[in-house]
Protein backbone atom coordinates (compact mmCIF):
# COMPACT_ATOMS: atom_id res chain seq x y z
CA UNK A 1 0.00 0.00 0.00
CA UNK A 2 2.49 2.58 1.18
CA UNK A 3 5.07 1.19 -1.24
CA UNK A 4 2.65 1.76 -4.10
CA UNK A 5 2.10 5.35 -3.02
CA UNK A 6 5.85 5.94 -2.79
CA UNK A 7 6.32 4.49 -6.23
CA UNK A 8 3.66 6.78 -7.68
CA UNK A 9 5.23 9.82 -6.07
CA UNK A 10 8.64 8.70 -7.32
CA UNK A 11 7.43 8.35 -10.89
CA UNK A 12 5.73 11.71 -10.80
CA UNK A 13 8.86 13.47 -9.57
CA UNK A 14 10.92 11.64 -12.18
CA UNK A 15 8.65 12.77 -15.01
CA UNK A 16 8.77 16.42 -13.92
CA UNK A 17 12.50 16.19 -13.18
CA UNK A 18 13.39 15.66 -16.81
CA UNK A 19 13.07 17.61 -20.04
CA UNK A 20 13.82 15.00 -22.66
CA UNK A 21 17.16 13.43 -21.74
CA UNK A 22 18.17 16.43 -19.57
CA UNK A 23 17.79 16.24 -15.79
CA UNK A 24 16.18 19.65 -15.19
CA UNK A 25 16.50 19.49 -11.42
CA UNK A 26 20.24 19.01 -11.85
CA UNK A 27 20.48 22.24 -13.84
CA UNK A 28 18.32 24.14 -11.34
CA UNK A 29 20.43 22.82 -8.47
CA UNK A 30 23.63 23.84 -10.27
CA UNK A 31 22.23 27.35 -10.75
CA UNK A 32 21.18 27.56 -7.10
CA UNK A 33 24.62 26.51 -5.95
CA UNK A 34 26.22 29.00 -8.31
CA UNK A 35 23.93 31.69 -6.94
CA UNK A 36 25.09 30.87 -3.41
CA UNK A 37 28.71 31.13 -4.59
CA UNK A 38 28.07 34.50 -6.22
CA UNK A 39 26.32 35.85 -3.11
CA UNK A 40 29.26 34.70 -1.01
CA UNK A 41 31.93 36.34 -3.19
CA UNK A 42 30.10 39.43 -4.37
CA UNK A 43 29.31 41.00 -1.02
CA UNK A 44 31.79 41.65 1.80
CA UNK A 45 31.35 39.93 5.17
CA UNK A 46 30.30 42.20 8.05
CA UNK A 47 33.04 40.55 10.08
CA UNK A 48 35.59 38.08 8.69
CA UNK A 49 34.70 34.39 9.29
CA UNK A 50 37.54 32.73 7.41
CA UNK A 51 37.52 29.98 4.76
CA UNK A 52 35.23 32.03 2.56
CA UNK A 53 37.15 31.20 -0.59
CA UNK A 54 37.22 27.48 0.17
CA UNK A 55 33.46 27.55 0.60
CA UNK A 56 33.04 29.37 -2.73
CA UNK A 57 35.32 26.86 -4.42
CA UNK A 58 33.27 23.97 -3.03
CA UNK A 59 30.02 25.56 -4.17
CA UNK A 60 31.34 26.14 -7.68
CA UNK A 61 32.73 22.61 -7.84
CA UNK A 62 29.34 21.30 -6.69
CA UNK A 63 27.57 23.40 -9.32
CA UNK A 64 29.88 22.10 -12.07
CA UNK A 65 29.34 18.47 -10.99
CA UNK A 66 25.57 18.97 -10.85
CA UNK A 67 25.54 20.62 -14.27
CA UNK A 68 27.54 17.70 -15.65
CA UNK A 69 25.20 15.20 -14.01
CA UNK A 70 22.24 16.89 -15.65
CA UNK A 71 23.33 15.22 -18.88
CA UNK A 72 24.36 11.81 -17.57
CA UNK A 73 22.75 11.07 -14.23
CA UNK A 74 20.80 8.13 -15.61
CA UNK A 75 24.01 6.25 -16.35
CA UNK A 76 24.85 6.09 -12.63
CA UNK A 77 22.40 3.31 -11.74
CA UNK A 78 21.20 3.18 -8.13
CA UNK A 79 23.25 6.19 -7.03
CA UNK A 80 21.83 8.19 -9.93
CA UNK A 81 18.26 7.26 -8.99
CA UNK A 82 18.99 8.43 -5.46
CA UNK A 83 20.25 11.76 -6.81
CA UNK A 84 17.18 12.18 -8.99
CA UNK A 85 14.94 11.45 -5.99
CA UNK A 86 16.72 14.12 -3.93
CA UNK A 87 16.94 16.62 -6.81
CA UNK A 88 14.50 19.10 -5.22
CA UNK A 89 16.52 18.86 -2.00
CA UNK A 90 19.71 19.77 -3.90
CA UNK A 91 17.97 22.86 -5.30
CA UNK A 92 16.68 23.86 -1.88
CA UNK A 93 20.13 23.35 -0.38
CA UNK A 94 21.70 25.82 -2.84
CA UNK A 95 18.98 28.39 -2.18
CA UNK A 96 19.34 27.88 1.55
CA UNK A 97 23.10 28.46 1.36
CA UNK A 98 22.49 31.75 -0.50
CA UNK A 99 19.86 32.91 2.00
CA UNK A 100 21.97 31.78 4.95
CA UNK A 101 24.97 33.75 3.66
CA UNK A 102 22.81 36.84 3.18
CA UNK A 103 21.19 37.00 6.60
CA UNK A 104 24.37 36.16 8.54
CA UNK A 105 27.64 37.21 6.92
CA UNK A 106 26.35 39.74 4.41
CA UNK A 107 23.57 41.70 6.11
CA UNK A 108 24.39 40.80 9.73
CA UNK A 109 20.71 40.47 10.61
CA UNK A 110 21.25 37.53 12.94
CA UNK A 111 22.80 38.44 16.34
CA UNK A 112 26.48 38.01 15.97
CA UNK A 113 28.26 35.58 18.19
CA UNK A 114 25.31 33.18 18.12
CA UNK A 115 24.92 32.65 14.39
CA UNK A 116 27.49 31.74 11.83
CA UNK A 117 27.35 31.65 8.04
CA UNK A 118 28.02 28.29 6.34
CA UNK A 119 31.60 29.18 5.58
CA UNK A 120 32.06 29.87 9.30
CA UNK A 121 31.18 26.22 9.99
CA UNK A 122 33.46 25.09 7.19
CA UNK A 123 36.21 27.13 8.78
CA UNK A 124 35.77 25.20 12.02
CA UNK A 125 36.25 21.86 10.24
CA UNK A 126 39.33 23.19 8.44
CA UNK A 127 40.97 24.72 11.51
CA UNK A 128 39.85 22.40 14.30
CA UNK A 129 39.58 19.02 12.56
CA UNK A 130 42.19 17.35 14.73
CA UNK A 131 40.46 18.18 17.98
CA UNK A 132 37.10 17.23 16.47
CA UNK A 133 38.45 13.85 15.39
CA UNK A 134 39.89 13.23 18.85
CA UNK A 135 36.52 14.11 20.39
CA UNK A 136 34.71 11.76 18.01
CA UNK A 137 37.14 8.98 18.89
CA UNK A 138 36.65 9.51 22.62
CA UNK A 139 32.89 9.53 22.27
CA UNK A 140 32.93 6.52 19.97
CA UNK A 141 34.98 4.58 22.52
CA UNK A 142 32.63 5.49 25.35
CA UNK A 143 29.49 4.78 23.33
CA UNK A 144 30.69 1.53 21.80
CA UNK A 145 31.83 -0.04 25.06
CA UNK A 146 28.90 1.35 27.04
CA UNK A 147 26.15 0.53 24.55
CA UNK A 148 27.31 -2.97 23.71
CA UNK A 149 28.03 -4.02 27.28
CA UNK A 150 24.65 -2.57 28.22
CA UNK A 151 22.65 -4.40 25.57
CA UNK A 152 24.52 -7.68 26.08
CA UNK A 153 23.87 -7.67 29.84
CA UNK A 154 20.34 -6.39 29.24
CA UNK A 155 19.59 -9.10 26.69
CA UNK A 156 20.96 -11.97 28.76
CA UNK A 157 19.24 -10.61 31.86
CA UNK A 158 16.00 -10.18 29.94
CA UNK A 159 16.06 -13.75 28.66
CA UNK A 160 16.71 -15.01 32.21
CA UNK A 161 13.91 -12.85 33.61
CA UNK A 162 11.48 -13.99 30.95
CA UNK A 163 12.40 -17.64 31.18
CA UNK A 164 13.11 -18.44 34.83
CA UNK A 165 10.46 -17.96 37.50
CA UNK A 166 13.13 -17.55 40.18
CA UNK A 167 14.91 -14.84 38.23
CA UNK A 168 11.61 -13.11 37.56
CA UNK A 169 10.65 -13.26 41.26
CA UNK A 170 13.84 -11.55 42.41
CA UNK A 171 14.70 -9.51 39.35
CA UNK A 172 11.42 -8.07 38.07
CA UNK A 173 10.63 -5.90 41.13
CA UNK A 174 14.14 -4.43 41.01
CA UNK A 175 13.92 -3.79 37.29
CA UNK A 176 10.48 -2.24 37.63
CA UNK A 177 11.75 0.02 40.39
CA UNK A 178 14.95 1.12 38.66
CA UNK A 179 13.74 1.02 35.06
CA UNK A 180 11.67 4.23 35.02
CA UNK A 181 14.38 6.34 36.69
CA UNK A 182 16.09 8.42 33.98
CA UNK A 183 19.68 7.29 33.69
CA UNK A 184 20.85 10.91 34.05
CA UNK A 185 19.45 10.92 37.60
CA UNK A 186 22.26 8.54 38.53
CA UNK A 187 24.93 11.03 37.52
CA UNK A 188 25.65 12.56 40.95
CA UNK A 189 25.88 9.13 42.59
CA UNK A 190 27.94 7.46 39.87
CA UNK A 191 30.60 10.12 39.86
CA UNK A 192 31.71 9.22 43.37
CA UNK A 193 30.77 5.52 43.19
CA UNK A 194 33.21 4.93 40.34
CA UNK A 195 36.97 5.57 40.52
CA UNK A 196 37.15 7.42 37.19
CA UNK A 197 34.73 9.62 35.29
CA UNK A 198 35.20 7.36 32.27
CA UNK A 199 33.92 4.33 34.19
CA UNK A 200 31.06 6.39 35.60
CA UNK A 201 30.06 7.55 32.10
CA UNK A 202 30.42 4.01 30.81
CA UNK A 203 28.08 2.77 33.50
CA UNK A 204 25.50 5.45 32.67
CA UNK A 205 25.50 4.67 28.96
CA UNK A 206 25.30 0.93 29.65
CA UNK A 207 22.45 1.48 32.10
CA UNK A 208 20.51 3.68 29.71
CA UNK A 209 20.78 1.23 26.83
CA UNK A 210 20.56 -1.98 28.87
CA UNK A 211 17.37 -1.37 30.82
CA UNK A 212 14.92 -1.04 27.93
CA UNK A 213 16.52 -4.05 26.26
CA UNK A 214 16.14 -6.08 29.47
CA UNK A 215 12.51 -5.07 29.99
CA UNK A 216 11.43 -5.71 26.42
CA UNK A 217 13.40 -8.94 26.08
CA UNK A 218 11.78 -10.23 29.27
CA UNK A 219 8.31 -9.31 28.10
CA UNK A 220 9.05 -10.77 24.66
CA UNK A 221 10.19 -14.11 26.09
CA UNK A 222 7.21 -14.06 28.41
CA UNK A 223 4.68 -13.56 25.67
CA UNK A 224 5.90 -16.36 23.41
CA UNK A 225 2.99 -18.51 22.26
CA UNK A 226 2.99 -21.50 24.64
CA UNK A 227 2.05 -23.84 21.79
CA UNK A 228 5.48 -23.23 20.24
CA UNK A 229 7.03 -24.84 23.30
CA UNK A 230 4.57 -27.75 23.15
CA UNK A 231 5.37 -28.31 19.49
CA UNK A 232 9.11 -28.24 20.11
CA UNK A 233 8.82 -30.53 23.14
CA UNK A 234 6.81 -33.18 21.32
CA UNK A 235 9.48 -33.11 18.62
CA UNK A 236 12.19 -33.90 21.15
CA UNK A 237 13.54 -30.47 22.10
CA UNK A 238 15.67 -29.96 25.22
CA UNK A 239 15.34 -26.88 27.47
CA UNK A 240 18.41 -25.46 25.82
CA UNK A 241 16.73 -25.78 22.43
CA UNK A 242 13.54 -24.19 23.81
CA UNK A 243 15.47 -21.12 24.98
CA UNK A 244 17.85 -20.68 22.06
CA UNK A 245 15.72 -21.78 19.15
CA UNK A 246 12.18 -21.00 20.29
CA UNK A 247 12.07 -18.33 23.01
CA UNK A 248 14.79 -16.04 21.66
CA UNK A 249 13.78 -15.96 17.97
CA UNK A 250 10.14 -15.55 18.95
CA UNK A 251 11.05 -12.65 21.27
CA UNK A 252 13.33 -10.92 18.77
CA UNK A 253 10.75 -8.37 17.53
CA UNK A 254 10.37 -7.17 21.14
CA UNK A 255 14.14 -7.15 21.61
CA UNK A 256 14.51 -4.79 18.68
CA UNK A 257 11.98 -2.35 20.11
CA UNK A 258 14.16 -2.35 23.24
CA UNK A 259 17.29 -1.85 21.16
CA UNK A 260 15.83 1.19 19.44
CA UNK A 261 14.80 2.69 22.78
CA UNK A 262 18.19 1.89 24.26
CA UNK A 263 19.93 3.48 21.30
CA UNK A 264 18.09 6.79 21.74
CA UNK A 265 18.57 6.78 25.53
CA UNK A 266 22.26 6.03 25.09
CA UNK A 267 22.72 9.16 22.93
CA UNK A 268 20.92 11.31 25.50
CA UNK A 269 23.00 10.07 28.41
CA UNK A 270 26.24 10.00 26.45
CA UNK A 271 26.29 13.74 25.81
CA UNK A 272 25.19 14.65 29.32
CA UNK A 273 27.80 12.38 30.86
CA UNK A 274 30.52 13.93 28.70
CA UNK A 275 29.52 17.43 29.70
CA UNK A 276 30.37 16.55 33.29
CA UNK A 277 34.03 16.16 34.04
CA UNK A 278 35.18 14.57 30.79
CA UNK A 279 38.45 15.67 29.20
CA UNK A 280 37.46 15.06 25.60
CA UNK A 281 34.40 13.93 23.72
CA UNK A 282 31.66 15.45 21.62
CA UNK A 283 29.56 16.47 24.61
CA UNK A 284 32.61 18.03 26.21
CA UNK A 285 33.37 19.91 22.97
CA UNK A 286 29.88 21.44 22.89
CA UNK A 287 30.19 22.53 26.50
CA UNK A 288 33.73 23.86 26.08
CA UNK A 289 33.01 25.86 22.92
CA UNK A 290 29.83 27.33 24.35
CA UNK A 291 31.85 28.64 27.28
CA UNK A 292 34.07 30.49 24.77
CA UNK A 293 31.06 31.69 22.75
CA UNK A 294 32.44 29.76 19.79
CA UNK A 295 29.01 28.98 18.42
CA UNK A 296 30.25 28.08 14.96
CA UNK A 297 32.16 25.22 16.59
CA UNK A 298 29.03 24.16 18.44
CA UNK A 299 26.99 23.99 15.21
CA UNK A 300 29.79 22.23 13.40
CA UNK A 301 29.83 19.54 16.09
CA UNK A 302 26.04 19.32 16.18
CA UNK A 303 26.00 18.54 12.46
CA UNK A 304 28.51 15.74 13.00
CA UNK A 305 26.47 14.38 15.88
CA UNK A 306 23.29 14.43 13.82
CA UNK A 307 25.01 12.49 11.05
CA UNK A 308 26.57 9.93 13.41
CA UNK A 309 23.42 9.33 15.46
CA UNK A 310 21.11 9.02 12.48
CA UNK A 311 23.70 6.78 10.83
CA UNK A 312 23.62 4.44 13.83
CA UNK A 313 19.82 4.40 13.83
CA UNK A 314 19.87 3.58 10.13
CA UNK A 315 22.37 0.80 10.79
CA UNK A 316 20.10 -0.73 13.42
CA UNK A 317 17.22 -0.65 10.93
CA UNK A 318 19.35 -2.53 8.43
CA UNK A 319 20.26 -5.16 11.04
CA UNK A 320 16.62 -5.51 12.04
CA UNK A 321 15.45 -5.93 8.47
CA UNK A 322 18.00 -8.67 7.97
CA UNK A 323 17.06 -10.57 11.13
CA UNK A 324 13.33 -9.96 11.08
CA UNK A 325 12.64 -10.21 7.37
CA UNK A 326 10.20 -13.02 8.18
CA UNK A 327 7.94 -10.45 9.85
CA UNK A 328 7.14 -8.77 6.56
CA UNK A 329 3.56 -9.68 5.83
CA UNK A 330 2.96 -10.67 9.45
CA UNK A 331 3.28 -7.13 10.76
CA UNK A 332 2.67 -3.89 8.92
CA UNK A 333 5.95 -1.96 9.20
Amino acid at each position, binding site marked *: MSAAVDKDAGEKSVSSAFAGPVWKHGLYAASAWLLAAIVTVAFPDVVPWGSRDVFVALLVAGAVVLAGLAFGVEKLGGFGRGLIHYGPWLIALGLWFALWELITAKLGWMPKPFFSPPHGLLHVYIVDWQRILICIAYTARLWTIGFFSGIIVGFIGGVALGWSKTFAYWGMPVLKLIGPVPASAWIPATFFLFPTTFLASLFLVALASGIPVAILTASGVNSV*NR*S*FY*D*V*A*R*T*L*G*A*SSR*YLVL*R*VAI*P*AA*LPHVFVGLFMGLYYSFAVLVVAEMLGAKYGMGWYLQFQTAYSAYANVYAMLIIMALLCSGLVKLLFVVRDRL*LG*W*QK*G*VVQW
Partner: protein
Amino acid sequence: MVAAAAVHAASDDSAGLAVDFQGVSHQYDLDGQPLPVLRQIDLAVAPGEFVALLGPSGCGKSTLLRLAAGLERPSSGEVLADGTIVARPDPSRVLVFQDPTLFPWRTVRDNVAIGPEARGVLAGSQKRIDDALRLVKLEAFASAFPHQLSGGMAQRAALARALVNDPRLLLLDEPLGRLDSLTRLTMQEELLALWRQAGYTVILVTHDVEEALLLSERVIVLTERPARIKAEVAVDLPYPRRRDDPRIVAQRQHILEILGFSA
Protein backbone atom coordinates in the same frame (compact mmCIF):
# COMPACT_ATOMS: atom_id res chain seq x y z
CA MET B 1 3.72 -42.54 -3.18
CA VAL B 2 7.41 -43.24 -3.62
CA ALA B 3 8.21 -40.55 -1.10
CA ALA B 4 5.82 -42.07 1.39
CA ALA B 5 7.52 -45.41 1.06
CA ALA B 6 10.90 -43.78 1.61
CA VAL B 7 9.83 -41.95 4.75
CA HIS B 8 8.42 -45.05 6.32
CA ALA B 9 10.77 -47.66 4.93
CA ALA B 10 12.39 -48.31 8.29
CA SER B 11 9.14 -48.76 10.17
CA ASP B 12 7.45 -51.74 8.58
CA ASP B 13 7.19 -54.17 11.46
CA SER B 14 6.98 -51.68 14.33
CA ALA B 15 4.89 -49.06 12.56
CA GLY B 16 2.07 -48.63 15.05
CA LEU B 17 2.25 -47.97 18.76
CA ALA B 18 -0.22 -49.58 21.19
CA VAL B 19 -1.77 -46.95 23.46
CA ASP B 20 -3.49 -47.87 26.68
CA PHE B 21 -5.36 -45.37 28.84
CA GLN B 22 -5.81 -47.04 32.26
CA GLY B 23 -8.25 -45.38 34.61
CA VAL B 24 -7.12 -41.95 33.50
CA SER B 25 -8.57 -38.97 35.33
CA HIS B 26 -7.28 -35.45 35.00
CA GLN B 27 -8.06 -32.07 36.45
CA TYR B 28 -6.81 -28.55 35.92
CA ASP B 29 -6.42 -25.83 38.47
CA LEU B 30 -8.64 -22.88 37.61
CA ASP B 31 -8.21 -19.92 40.00
CA GLY B 32 -7.53 -22.31 42.84
CA GLN B 33 -10.58 -24.44 42.03
CA PRO B 34 -10.00 -27.94 40.70
CA LEU B 35 -11.62 -28.34 37.29
CA PRO B 36 -12.06 -32.03 36.45
CA VAL B 37 -11.78 -32.63 32.70
CA LEU B 38 -11.40 -36.41 32.40
CA ARG B 39 -12.99 -39.07 34.58
CA GLN B 40 -11.95 -42.72 34.55
CA ILE B 41 -11.04 -43.16 30.93
CA ASP B 42 -10.21 -46.74 29.98
CA LEU B 43 -9.32 -47.11 26.36
CA ALA B 44 -7.01 -49.46 24.50
CA VAL B 45 -5.88 -48.52 21.02
CA ALA B 46 -4.32 -51.30 18.96
CA PRO B 47 -1.11 -50.80 16.97
CA GLY B 48 -1.94 -49.27 13.62
CA GLU B 49 -5.51 -48.51 14.55
CA PHE B 50 -7.28 -45.28 13.54
CA VAL B 51 -9.47 -44.11 16.40
CA ALA B 52 -11.60 -40.97 16.43
CA LEU B 53 -12.56 -39.18 19.65
CA LEU B 54 -15.85 -37.39 19.30
CA GLY B 55 -17.52 -35.17 21.84
CA PRO B 56 -18.91 -31.77 22.66
CA SER B 57 -16.42 -28.94 22.44
CA GLY B 58 -14.46 -28.26 25.61
CA CYS B 59 -15.12 -31.74 26.95
CA GLY B 60 -11.51 -32.74 27.45
CA LYS B 61 -10.72 -34.52 24.18
CA SER B 62 -7.61 -32.44 23.63
CA THR B 63 -6.43 -33.22 27.15
CA LEU B 64 -6.44 -36.93 26.30
CA LEU B 65 -4.10 -36.18 23.41
CA ARG B 66 -1.82 -34.04 25.57
CA LEU B 67 -1.56 -36.91 28.05
CA ALA B 68 -0.80 -39.40 25.27
CA ALA B 69 1.84 -37.03 23.90
CA GLY B 70 3.43 -36.81 27.35
CA LEU B 71 3.06 -33.03 27.59
CA GLU B 72 1.26 -33.60 30.92
CA ARG B 73 0.93 -36.43 33.42
CA PRO B 74 -2.60 -37.52 34.38
CA SER B 75 -3.84 -36.64 37.87
CA SER B 76 -4.56 -40.32 38.39
CA GLY B 77 -4.30 -43.46 36.29
CA GLU B 78 -1.64 -44.02 33.62
CA VAL B 79 -1.18 -43.78 29.91
CA LEU B 80 0.90 -46.63 28.51
CA ALA B 81 2.62 -46.70 25.16
CA ASP B 82 3.61 -50.23 24.16
CA GLY B 83 3.30 -51.12 27.85
CA THR B 84 5.61 -48.33 29.08
CA ILE B 85 4.32 -45.41 31.13
CA VAL B 86 4.27 -42.17 29.15
CA ALA B 87 6.24 -39.74 31.28
CA ARG B 88 7.53 -37.17 28.82
CA PRO B 89 7.16 -36.12 25.20
CA ASP B 90 8.86 -38.25 22.61
CA PRO B 91 9.15 -37.75 18.86
CA SER B 92 7.64 -41.21 18.30
CA ARG B 93 4.35 -39.74 19.56
CA VAL B 94 3.68 -36.53 17.70
CA LEU B 95 0.84 -34.11 18.26
CA VAL B 96 -0.57 -31.99 15.43
CA PHE B 97 -2.57 -29.04 16.70
CA GLN B 98 -5.68 -27.36 15.39
CA ASP B 99 -3.53 -24.34 14.52
CA PRO B 100 -0.56 -25.25 12.37
CA THR B 101 1.68 -23.43 14.94
CA LEU B 102 4.47 -23.14 12.41
CA PHE B 103 7.34 -21.02 13.71
CA PRO B 104 6.86 -17.79 11.74
CA TRP B 105 10.58 -16.98 11.71
CA ARG B 106 11.46 -20.21 9.95
CA THR B 107 10.88 -21.25 6.37
CA VAL B 108 8.63 -24.22 5.68
CA ARG B 109 11.64 -26.46 5.28
CA ASP B 110 13.25 -25.24 8.50
CA ASN B 111 9.97 -25.84 10.30
CA VAL B 112 9.89 -29.41 9.06
CA ALA B 113 13.51 -29.74 10.20
CA ILE B 114 12.73 -28.83 13.84
CA GLY B 115 12.41 -32.45 15.03
CA PRO B 116 15.70 -33.71 13.55
CA GLU B 117 17.44 -30.48 14.58
CA ALA B 118 16.20 -30.70 18.18
CA ARG B 119 17.46 -34.25 18.42
CA GLY B 120 20.83 -33.36 16.88
CA VAL B 121 20.40 -35.52 13.77
CA LEU B 122 19.83 -32.71 11.28
CA ALA B 123 22.86 -33.50 9.12
CA GLY B 124 21.67 -37.03 8.38
CA SER B 125 18.05 -36.07 7.84
CA GLN B 126 18.18 -33.76 4.81
CA LYS B 127 16.76 -36.38 2.47
CA ARG B 128 13.99 -37.33 4.87
CA ILE B 129 13.01 -33.68 5.20
CA ASP B 130 12.77 -33.37 1.42
CA ASP B 131 10.76 -36.59 1.30
CA ALA B 132 8.36 -35.34 3.94
CA LEU B 133 7.85 -32.09 2.01
CA ARG B 134 7.18 -34.04 -1.16
CA LEU B 135 4.77 -36.26 0.73
CA VAL B 136 2.55 -33.29 1.60
CA LYS B 137 3.16 -31.69 -1.83
CA LEU B 138 4.97 -28.66 -0.48
CA GLU B 139 8.37 -29.17 -2.10
CA ALA B 140 7.84 -26.01 -4.18
CA PHE B 141 7.24 -23.99 -1.00
CA ALA B 142 10.25 -25.21 0.96
CA SER B 143 11.75 -21.75 1.25
CA ALA B 144 8.47 -19.88 1.79
CA PHE B 145 7.66 -18.36 5.16
CA PRO B 146 4.51 -19.53 6.99
CA HIS B 147 2.65 -16.26 6.43
CA GLN B 148 2.89 -16.86 2.70
CA LEU B 149 0.95 -20.15 2.94
CA SER B 150 -2.77 -20.76 2.75
CA GLY B 151 -4.47 -22.45 5.70
CA GLY B 152 -4.43 -25.87 4.05
CA MET B 153 -0.79 -25.55 3.04
CA ALA B 154 0.19 -24.49 6.56
CA GLN B 155 -1.60 -27.47 8.02
CA ARG B 156 0.12 -29.77 5.51
CA ALA B 157 3.46 -28.26 6.55
CA ALA B 158 2.58 -29.01 10.18
CA LEU B 159 1.80 -32.57 9.14
CA ALA B 160 5.15 -32.88 7.36
CA ARG B 161 6.85 -31.56 10.49
CA ALA B 162 5.24 -34.41 12.42
CA LEU B 163 5.79 -37.13 9.81
CA VAL B 164 9.48 -36.43 9.30
CA ASN B 165 10.08 -37.90 12.76
CA ASP B 166 8.68 -41.21 11.63
CA PRO B 167 6.07 -41.25 14.40
CA ARG B 168 4.51 -44.47 15.57
CA LEU B 169 1.58 -42.61 17.04
CA LEU B 170 0.02 -39.57 15.38
CA LEU B 171 -2.18 -37.48 17.64
CA LEU B 172 -4.39 -35.16 15.60
CA ASP B 173 -6.19 -32.43 17.52
CA GLU B 174 -8.88 -31.22 15.10
CA PRO B 175 -6.18 -30.58 12.53
CA LEU B 176 -8.75 -29.77 9.85
CA GLY B 177 -11.04 -27.70 12.05
CA ARG B 178 -10.01 -24.33 10.69
CA LEU B 179 -9.96 -25.24 7.02
CA ASP B 180 -12.56 -24.38 4.41
CA SER B 181 -14.79 -27.30 3.48
CA LEU B 182 -13.18 -28.10 0.11
CA THR B 183 -9.63 -28.07 1.48
CA ARG B 184 -10.93 -30.15 4.31
CA LEU B 185 -12.21 -32.89 2.00
CA THR B 186 -8.86 -33.04 0.19
CA MET B 187 -6.95 -33.17 3.47
CA GLN B 188 -9.17 -35.96 4.80
CA GLU B 189 -8.28 -38.07 1.79
CA GLU B 190 -4.60 -37.24 2.22
CA LEU B 191 -4.61 -38.13 5.91
CA LEU B 192 -6.22 -41.43 5.12
CA ALA B 193 -3.79 -42.21 2.33
CA LEU B 194 -0.79 -41.41 4.52
CA TRP B 195 -2.06 -43.59 7.34
CA ARG B 196 -2.80 -46.51 5.05
CA GLN B 197 0.69 -46.34 3.58
CA ALA B 198 2.58 -45.85 6.81
CA GLY B 199 0.63 -47.92 9.27
CA TYR B 200 1.14 -45.75 12.36
CA THR B 201 -1.53 -45.52 15.04
CA VAL B 202 -3.77 -42.46 14.79
CA ILE B 203 -5.93 -40.86 17.46
CA LEU B 204 -8.01 -38.10 15.88
CA VAL B 205 -9.97 -35.60 17.91
CA THR B 206 -12.85 -34.09 16.00
CA HIS B 207 -16.31 -32.72 16.53
CA ASP B 208 -17.38 -33.61 13.03
CA VAL B 209 -19.32 -36.89 13.09
CA GLU B 210 -18.98 -37.44 9.37
CA GLU B 211 -15.22 -36.91 9.46
CA ALA B 212 -14.92 -39.46 12.25
CA LEU B 213 -16.93 -41.99 10.27
CA LEU B 214 -15.09 -41.46 7.00
CA LEU B 215 -11.65 -41.81 8.51
CA SER B 216 -11.63 -44.01 11.58
CA GLU B 217 -12.06 -47.69 12.36
CA ARG B 218 -13.58 -46.93 15.74
CA VAL B 219 -15.39 -43.86 17.05
CA ILE B 220 -15.23 -43.13 20.78
CA VAL B 221 -18.05 -40.85 21.90
CA LEU B 222 -17.30 -38.81 25.01
CA THR B 223 -19.66 -37.08 27.44
CA GLU B 224 -19.73 -33.45 28.52
CA ARG B 225 -16.93 -32.32 30.85
CA PRO B 226 -15.65 -34.13 32.86
CA ALA B 227 -15.44 -36.52 29.94
CA ARG B 228 -16.21 -40.19 30.28
CA ILE B 229 -16.56 -42.69 27.47
CA LYS B 230 -20.22 -42.74 26.53
CA ALA B 231 -20.18 -45.15 23.64
CA GLU B 232 -17.89 -46.94 21.23
CA VAL B 233 -18.92 -47.41 17.63
CA ALA B 234 -16.96 -49.73 15.38
CA VAL B 235 -16.87 -48.57 11.76
CA ASP B 236 -16.26 -51.79 9.93
CA LEU B 237 -16.36 -50.53 6.36
CA PRO B 238 -13.76 -50.70 3.60
CA TYR B 239 -11.85 -47.63 2.46
CA PRO B 240 -12.34 -45.36 0.60
CA ARG B 241 -15.72 -44.57 2.09
CA ARG B 242 -18.39 -42.41 0.58
CA ARG B 243 -20.31 -39.96 2.68
CA ASP B 244 -23.55 -40.94 0.95
CA ASP B 245 -23.04 -44.64 1.70
CA PRO B 246 -26.29 -45.69 3.46
CA ARG B 247 -24.29 -47.47 6.19
CA ILE B 248 -22.37 -44.26 6.94
CA VAL B 249 -25.60 -42.28 6.95
CA ALA B 250 -27.17 -44.77 9.37
CA GLN B 251 -24.18 -44.72 11.72
CA ARG B 252 -24.11 -40.95 11.60
CA GLN B 253 -27.73 -40.92 12.72
CA HIS B 254 -26.91 -43.39 15.46
CA ILE B 255 -24.01 -41.32 16.82
CA LEU B 256 -25.98 -38.09 16.69
CA GLU B 257 -28.63 -39.79 18.80
CA ILE B 258 -25.99 -40.86 21.31
CA LEU B 259 -24.84 -37.24 21.45
CA GLY B 260 -28.40 -36.20 22.18
CA PHE B 261 -29.54 -34.93 18.81
CA SER B 262 -32.64 -36.74 17.59
CA ALA B 263 -33.50 -35.78 14.07
